[in-house]
């Protein structure tokens, strides 16, 4: 195994023992080969224990409870916020807003910053690589407010056409560039700090969808240069139901509230209300306290392993997998090959529908995803209705790739794939 200086290869044997679900079998006794971490990651015992432990020993609603349990729950919640802030290099914890998921984080930006700042004719630039969650909120603003949404295309390798971005920035009234850091369908790692620099020169803000990057790469918001970063807890070893919007402090402080209700106010009268400080202004209603605490435990786990080491592990797996998959007759791989590629492998297999591929793999205990991956514009751009997608994380190893390749060889025989 080759490693970059300073990163030790992961002890995957030991890591796998931390994930209870990897001990179970599926489909009549077959060991689970989990290759769907781009959809959601599995959870280490420490995260599961943090979640259960909160309910077992610390459960109370946060804020304003003048008793020990509530104080404890409030402290745990805010400690989790501080952990997440440190993890992504935020300059202060109150730049971190807890939401449900990436989708909610992006909608929060559209509904607060977007509604306050975008008028008819203003342009939001996004890309053909985006997940629907970074397309539909802008389409909604287009329908409601007459903003214009432009899409940056990809080249034949699956990389963004930065020349198109440049042209749009020079010729259009671009107010926001909303771009994914890592494509969930192709694995392309976009040059977001370069994109942010170009956008800022043109006076536009930058929103980065970090759903596929924060779990897998070292991400530092200062190095990124973005204005907003959205990501989900459940893809980074944390529980469902908790996600993060990060924004620069001054920017966040300038935004109007999102949802209205308890927790987000300073005062309420029969005449009206005044919004509270950030980040509470954006966290109306009782938050997912236990989920936030468990996300903090996930951050602890990732930091103990090291994000650089996780990234290097996925690079090694990718280098192992791509040539082996390429050898299978009938297979077509999508996405760039190079340093700007994350551990996501989308492919088609002759004329066989990806649902059939996934169903045959499932019979071998292999979990992959088949479909449009919530990227219908990208699928149309590639000229396919769907792909099969295998995605890695720190608990995958070469044996998983071997099982995938063997099962695909068998699928080829069963489904009669033309070479």
């Amino acid at each position, binding site marked *: 195994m080759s490693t970059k200086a300073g990163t030790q290869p992961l002890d995957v044997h030991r890591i796998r023992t931390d994930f209870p679900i990897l001990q179970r079998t599926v489909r009549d006794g077959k060991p689970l080969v989990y290759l769907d971490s781009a959809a959601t990651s599995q959870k280490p015992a420490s995260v599961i224990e943090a979640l259960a432990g909160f309910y077992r020993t610390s459960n109370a609603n946060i804020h304003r409870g003048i008793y020990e349990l509530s104080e404890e729950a409030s402290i745990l919640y805010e400690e989790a916020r501080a952990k997440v802030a440190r993890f992504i290099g935020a300059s202060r914890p109150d730049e971190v807003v807890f939401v449900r998921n990436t989708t909610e984080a992006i909608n929060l930006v559209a509904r607060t910053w977007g509604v306050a700042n975008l008028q008819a004719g203003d342009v939001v630039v996004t890309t053909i690589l985006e997940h629907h969650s970074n397309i539909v909120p802008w389409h909604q603003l287009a329908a409601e407010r007459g903003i214009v949404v432009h899409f940056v295309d990809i080249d034949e390798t699956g990389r963004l056409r930065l020349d198109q971005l440049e042209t749009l920035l020079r010729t259009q009234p671009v107010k926001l560039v909303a771009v994914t850091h890592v494509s969930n369908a192709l694995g392309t790692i976009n040059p977001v700090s370069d994109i942010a620099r170009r956008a800022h020169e043109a006076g536009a803000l930058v929103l980065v969808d970090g759903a596929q990057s924060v779990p897998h790469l070292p991400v530092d918001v200062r190095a990124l240069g973005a204005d907003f970063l959205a990501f989900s807890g459940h893809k980074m070893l944390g529980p469902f139901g908790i996600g993060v919007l990060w924004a620069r402090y001054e920017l966040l402080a300038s935004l109007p509230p999102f949802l209205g209700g308890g927790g987000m106010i300073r005062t309420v009268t029969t005449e009206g209300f005044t919004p509270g400080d950030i980040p509470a202004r954006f966290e109306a209603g009782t938050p997912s306290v236990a989920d936030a605490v468990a996300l903090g435990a996930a951050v602890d786990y990732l930091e103990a392993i090291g994000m650089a080491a996780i990234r290097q592990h996925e690079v090694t797996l990718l280098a192992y997998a791509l040539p082996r998959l390429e050898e299978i007759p009938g297979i077509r791989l999508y996405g760039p090959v190079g340093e700007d590629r994350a551990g996501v492998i989308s492919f088609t297999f002759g004329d066989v529908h990806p*649902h*059939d591929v996934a169903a*045959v793999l499932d*019979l071998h205990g292999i979990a992959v995803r088949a479909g449009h991956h919530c990227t219908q514009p990208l699928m149309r751009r590639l000229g396919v209705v769907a792909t099969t997608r295998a995605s890695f994380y720190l608990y995958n190893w070469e044996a998983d790739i071997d099982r995938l390749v063997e099962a695909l060889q068998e699928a080829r025989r*069963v*489904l009669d794939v033309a070479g």
Partner: protein
Amino acid sequence: MSDLYREHILDHYQHPRNYGTLEQPDRSFEDSNPLCGDRIRIDLKLSGDRIEDIRFTGRGCAISQAAASILTEMVKGKSLEEVRALGAEDLLEELGVPISPARRKCALLSLKVLKAAAYGINEWPR
């Protein structure tokens, strides 16, 4: 090798029966399952209220295409009243393989298209 891809399913998928289009169909309908892109078109030639001939074309997963092939064999020569009486379970039973909830629409797309062609009701069969 597996329950889902038993030989007769693969046989219908690889060698679909009644595949193609009719020159002058009395009824014709096409629909797709937008989630997975499965697409089926069915042409009917009627003699009175009886299905004298039926053809289908389509593309999609093995389950959707095999089910369409099997369905054409089931209904050829049947009356429109008999088609109306066909339920989801009738086709699933004929498929003879376990269909998970996630694949149910794959298996039933052809029946949905047939019913729309036969008497204009375009909804998922129950």
